[in-house]
């Protein structure tokens, strides 16, 4: 049975960074989008639909479909295909809809 990791680098990247996905450390190529970085590991679904929990993962890679939504450093609903991966990023699956931020708890 082949591995379930979907993508690999054509050749080694010049630089790699460490991020965390659901608490697990991952080494990923630097200078790529977060969605691309996540695709180099066997993670399966990276979100659960807000409607019925359906497993979802990056689909269009160009900011159209919003299937690649993840939580980055506590910020919900980030489009992983539109943000660059950064050393130390803490990434979690987007589970359902984001919480409403009441009383200025939002840090954006």
């Amino acid at each position: 049975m082949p591995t379930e990791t979907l993508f690999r680098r054509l050749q080694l990247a010049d630089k790699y960074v460490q991020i965390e996905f659901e608490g697990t450390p991952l080494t990923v190529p630097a200078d790529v989008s977060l969605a691309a970085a996540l695709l180099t590991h066997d993670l399966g679904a990276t979100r659960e639909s807000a409607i019925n929990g359906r497993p979802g993962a990056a689909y269009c890679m160009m900011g159209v479909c919003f299937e690649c939504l993840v939580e980055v450093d506590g910020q919900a609903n980030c489009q992983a295909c539109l943000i660059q991966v950064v050393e130390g990023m803490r990434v979690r699956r987007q589970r359902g809809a984001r919480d409403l931020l009441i009383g200025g708890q939002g840090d954006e």
Partner: protein
Amino acid sequence: MSDPVVDLIIIGAGPAGISAALEASAHGLEVVLLDEQGSPGGQIWRNVAQADTRTRQVLGSDYSAGQPLVEALLASNVRYQPNAAVWQVTEERCVHFLLDGKARVLQGRQLLIATGAMERPMPIPGWTLPGVMTAGAGQILLKSAALVPQGPVILAGCGPLLYLLAVQYLRAGIGIEALVDTSERRDVFKHSRQLRQALAGWRDLLKGLSLLATLKRAGVKHYRAARNLRVEGGRRAEALCFDSDGRAQKVWASLILLHQGVAPNIQISQSLRADHDWNEQQLCWVARRDSWGETSLPGIFIAGDGGAIGGANVAATQGRLAALAIAHRLQKIDACRLQALSKPWLQMLGRQSAARPLIDALYRPLAQNRIPHDDTIVCRCEEVSAGTIRGYVELGCLGPNQTKAFGRCGMGPCQGRQCGLSVTEIIAEHRNVSPAQVGYYRIRPPLKPITLAQLASERELETSTSSTPERSLS
């Protein structure tokens, strides 16, 4: 502070946007070019300035062809602004956008929308499973991250991009489990009317044929006229099932890349309420434009695939023509010079467009992959199936806007980008009327997610030219 109103705002730094920016700048216009990506090139030349030699070799000459234009842009007077996500455009040519999370606004005397195409949705059973992506996504991963499939991969659907990606994977040494082609055998002569016209664009035709020949030589398993495509899997894609050669087929793969052509990205022009028409040849909405690219809204132009699908070369030429018309409008060139300068571009546009009707006919996506069976999910955000939408029609729903009230269809974060075309066609078929009668979603800002805090802190973009513009490339 300089004048907060600039001569020309261009949205999108692909072939059309870059060409228009260079042309307009050459005639003395102050141009601001806003782009969502971090570096210029659009989807076709994505990352071309940074891609390594190996990636360029895999992607081929049409990709590297973008580099001179990208370099010319970065060396020009054009104020190029990467990482700008446009969330609202007004009829008065006010462009609101997010820049590094901060809301900015800019006013233009003229506006050019060059936002290109997006992939046509291909709603087949199982297309929402992790492991199913678009062929365009596969190519973006190759261009921007030098990523290639690690396990078994299937390419399924129709259109030139599907063959191109297959050849690029071959060059990268990637084996393809199967090319599952929904188009018929290469019956070019069936379309004799288009063929005669297309001969003027013979280079484009040869390109397509040579891609197919390469795939054949490499021994890629090529299923033709595939029907009833269905992705199987539990929590991720495991296999693609389909009928071909009169038999039920099943091919195992962890990655399934779907593609059935591209359609104009019309979010901005629709949100502006510019006039649009249903194009039956390209099965999509196209903004009504004059021969320079001006929409029904004065001072707002569209160039490239965001208007109608024509490909990168057509886009670049349309960008030049729109820029010339805009330079004339702002009295930088007189009517005589406009005519002289645009003549060669108009002739080139004729040649570049010649093969398009044949390409549209050859790769027309199948009805069953546009208007799926009842149990297939159409609106991925709100999980609405084709059957549910037909149910709405039976309850009196006449068009896409009403599906929102019936069941939130098209109201998720993608704002109908993924399901819009499918919803229009499903309703039209079920009502037995044309898509033109059914219409499209009423698109409203914000076109991109924006927080209230960002909105509250919006201010004008600093347009002073005394400081060096920020650029992602050095």
